[in-house]
């Protein structure tokens, strides 16, 4: 049923793109037309690319392993609030208390080696390797297309994880594989639209899967290339060698000027000043006082940071940590839609003075003779973060708060973050993939997702070491229900608490720019039809886009 939506919109998108193309006028190129050559993309791989198509190697397997070769049951479009689109799956249903999940899959599916893909494969996949949820009691195929999964606790909130990012693997191959973490799976057999044609450590090529359920995709070959610098990829785009990349380009006009390449910029995933927030968890430093965090929150000039450090491409982030406008209906208090965009040194000083801080002779605030001195670190070479940190330091100084911006190597960056031995760090939170901010609250704000300083959180990413019983109770309440009214009340509580306590001080919403060749290929997402985010490094979304694309006949 969801598939129909694609089919209907496809000609529309294609038409719009074709029109845009005619109006824009065709250009030079020197490259051959789309029909007779592979689509060339850069999904962020650096050379040498590792010959690894193991879907359990989420960090080191090639990008196209996910989505193009192996598929999840459903596709959750992170840009829309629409229901998920069926891939292998056809429909799913939870029982009332969220412990029994019944999944039906599409009939007559095939693996790329010709074997049947049945409910038994799905049940096998859900119980195999790192897919196995400790709360899962059983996963039983009841017939060829139905699987019943039973859990010991409510799983409403894990829906997108179970259905949207569990890669379904063939039982007849993986049943014999013991070391699922060391397997490199060089001849992957999947259900997705593409199969592996050839591999080298500089690039690898996929070809259309003849047995794909909707018929082989129209783009017969896709080549994913290893590139080590953004500049090279920008140059390759300009010279017509590359068709699709997702990367930061400060001046996109230089790339799109030739009329071949179009660009889009989606804003998501907030960049924050992460604070080690709670003394009860072992944090130390002036930032453990909420007043200092609140003062810092109003002291920084977000519009200047967005313009100068993020080249004007970033969006305004919300202290509610809901992604707006996608999550509009979950925003309890409209005043929490965006963080203050201008610096207000006066309010910052007022907050500090009310909390008992006094200004020293050097112009900086302190308490009981101890001046506030905070260390804000970011990974060396992440220039947007490094610049933002410098601006924050200067803006905080204007309000009388001493913040030292410091850069460290990437290796030195991850260690204090995972152990909690830091004061302030620039950090990027990962947005929830569905139109519901639950995973943000559960992952970053709940006490269960945290750990004492010195230990690494294992069940979440609350690296701020934030703990608040009101938030914990509300997260628990929201996770155990599908009742929207109850969820909304719970979220409102969470939002009020975290916007006041500010364990993560929102800075901007990150830009994610994509560039794609509309001269040789049509069917890309457009502002009017965001059927998937056009970023080649997003696993399922990139595969969905590949199946929508068609070569332009010239």
């Amino acid at each position: 049923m969801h598939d129909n939506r694609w089919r209907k919109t496809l000609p529309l998108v294609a038409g719009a793109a074709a029109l845009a193309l005619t109006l824009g006028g065709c250009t030079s190129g020197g490259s051959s037309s789309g029909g007779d050559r592979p689509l060339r993309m850069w999904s962020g791989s650096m050379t040498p690319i590792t010959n690894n198509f193991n879907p359990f190697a989420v960090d080191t397997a090639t990008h196209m392993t996910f989505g193009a070769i192996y598929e999840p049951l459903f596709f959750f479009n992170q840009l829309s609030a629409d229901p998920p689109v069926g891939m292998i799956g056809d429909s799913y249903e939870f029982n009332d208390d969220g412990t029994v999940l019944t999944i039906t899959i599409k009939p007559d599916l095939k693996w790329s080696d010709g074997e049947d893909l049945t409910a038994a494969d799905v049940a096998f996949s859900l119980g195999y390797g790192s897919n196995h949820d400790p709360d899962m009691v059983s996963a039983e195929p009841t017939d060829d297309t139905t699987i019943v999964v039973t859990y010991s606790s409510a799983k409403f909130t894990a829906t997108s994880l179970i259905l949207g990012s569990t890669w379904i693997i063939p039982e007849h191959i993986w049943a014999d594989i013991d070391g699922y973490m060391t397997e490199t799976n060089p001849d992957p057999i999947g259900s997705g639209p593409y199969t592996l044609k050839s591999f080298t450590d500089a690039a690898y090529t996929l070809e259309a899967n003849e047995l794909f359920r909707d018929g082989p995709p129209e783009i017969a070959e896709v080549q994913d290339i290893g590139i080590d610098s953004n500049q090279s990829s920008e140059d390759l785009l300009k010279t017509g060698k590359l068709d699709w990349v997702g990367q930061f380009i400060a001046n996109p006009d230089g790339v799109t000027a030739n009329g071949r390449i179009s660009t889009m910029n989606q804003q998501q995933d907030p960049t924050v000043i992460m604070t080690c927030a709670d003394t009860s968890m072992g944090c130390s430093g002036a930032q453990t006082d909420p007043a200092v965090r609140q003062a810092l929150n109003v002291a920084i000039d977000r519009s200047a940071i967005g313009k100068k450090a993020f080249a004007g491409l970033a969006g305004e982030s919300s202290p509610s940590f809901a992604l707006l406008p996608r999550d509009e209906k979950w925003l309890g208090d409209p005043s929490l839609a965006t963080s203050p965009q201008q610096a207000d040194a006066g309010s910052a000083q007022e907050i500090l003075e009310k909390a008992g801080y006094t200004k020293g002779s050097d112009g900086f605030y302190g308490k009981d003779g101890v001046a506030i001195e905070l260390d804000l670190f970011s990974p060396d070479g992440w220039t947007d973060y490094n610049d933002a940190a410098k601006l924050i330091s200067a803006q905080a100084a204007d309000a009388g708060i001493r913040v030292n911006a410091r850069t460290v190597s990437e290796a030195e960056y991850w260690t204090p973050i995972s152990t909690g031995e830091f004061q302030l760090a620039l950090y990027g939170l990962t947005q929830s993939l569905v139109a519901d901010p639950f995973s943000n609250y559960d992952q970053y704000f709940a006490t269960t997702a945290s750990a004492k300083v010195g230990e690494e959180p294992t069940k979440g990413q609350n690296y701020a070491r934030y703990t608040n019983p009101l938030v914990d109770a509300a997260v628990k309440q929201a996770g155990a229900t599908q009742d929207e009214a109850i969820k909304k009340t719970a979220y409102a509580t969470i939002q009020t608490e975290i916007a006041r306590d500010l364990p993560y001080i929102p800075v901007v919403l990150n830009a994610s720019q994509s560039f794609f060749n509309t001269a040789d290929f049509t069917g890309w997402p457009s502002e009017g039809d965001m059927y998937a985010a056009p970023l080649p490094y997003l696993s399922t979304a990139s595969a969905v886009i590949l199946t929508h694309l068609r070569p332009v006949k010239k």
Partner: protein
Amino acid sequence: MKFWLRRITFYVVTLWAAISLNFLLPRLLPGDPAAIMLGKLRRANGGRPLSEETIAAITSILGAEKGSTLWDQYLSYWGRLLQGDLGVSSTRYPAPVGELIASALPWTVTLVGAATVISFVLGIVAGAWVGWFRGTWVDQLVPITTFLQSIPYFWLALVLVAVFSVQLGLLPIIGGYDVFEFPAGPEWTPAFIASAFVHALLPAATIVISSVGGWLLGMRNMMVQTMAEDYVLTAEAKGLTRSRIRNAYAARNASIPSLAGFGIALGFVVAGSIVTEQVFSYPGLGKLMIQSVQGLDYALMQGVFLVITLTVLAANFLIDLLYGFIDPRVRRDG
């Protein structure tokens, strides 16, 4: 005989010290590779709890062998090394370090090796020439090449790419060969070799441009010094032709110190040219090195450093031998 024994003992001790340092250095760096990989995995996994087997698998392969003493780690490091096992890369998990190095080495040796030889020959020939005609307009070559040498490496590479590849479209932008033409990888055909040659031109040019000045300056100064020697004066008095004096008497002797430098430079060829390889996505060893350091990939780091250490030592050893034969004064005791 005593001379050779002393040299060989020296090299064995140096080798041992280098390999031991190689073991120690990464362990003195901050951060734990297993923790880094687990952190990245957790993020990539959408916050799904990692299973105990996963954590165990990663810590057993990448972990800094928690609980065991440094001495035990050192012994097992030697044990694996002697079996030719360089371990598993964490940034390119689970690729064996040996394989990564083996596929990167030929590219680096060919590119940087050829560039070093070209730069040396160019520098020596031009240096001899500039030295011979000192005081004329050719002296301008010295500040020009010195200036080229002072240009930041990556900037030079970016400018060359912008001009020759993007603007003029003459030369490729990335890679060791055309990945679009040869999607199945390297093959022994004339077309492939031509492609590899064309892809090496710009990276080689950056290396040559930025290093030729050093050779030129050294050679020129030695040339000027040699020309004041008595035997050059004698040669002139004998009425030999100018070109014979220049080539056989002055340039030949002036180039000896440069030859020693050349031997050392050749030893460092294997270390690659980090910046060049990074800018051009060239599949060489220098890039593996920078990636391993950034990703705190102990095994890869050690593997790369080991290869570099071995080649530098080998190159020095060969030069030592060569000098021993050429110049008897070197062999004399004490």
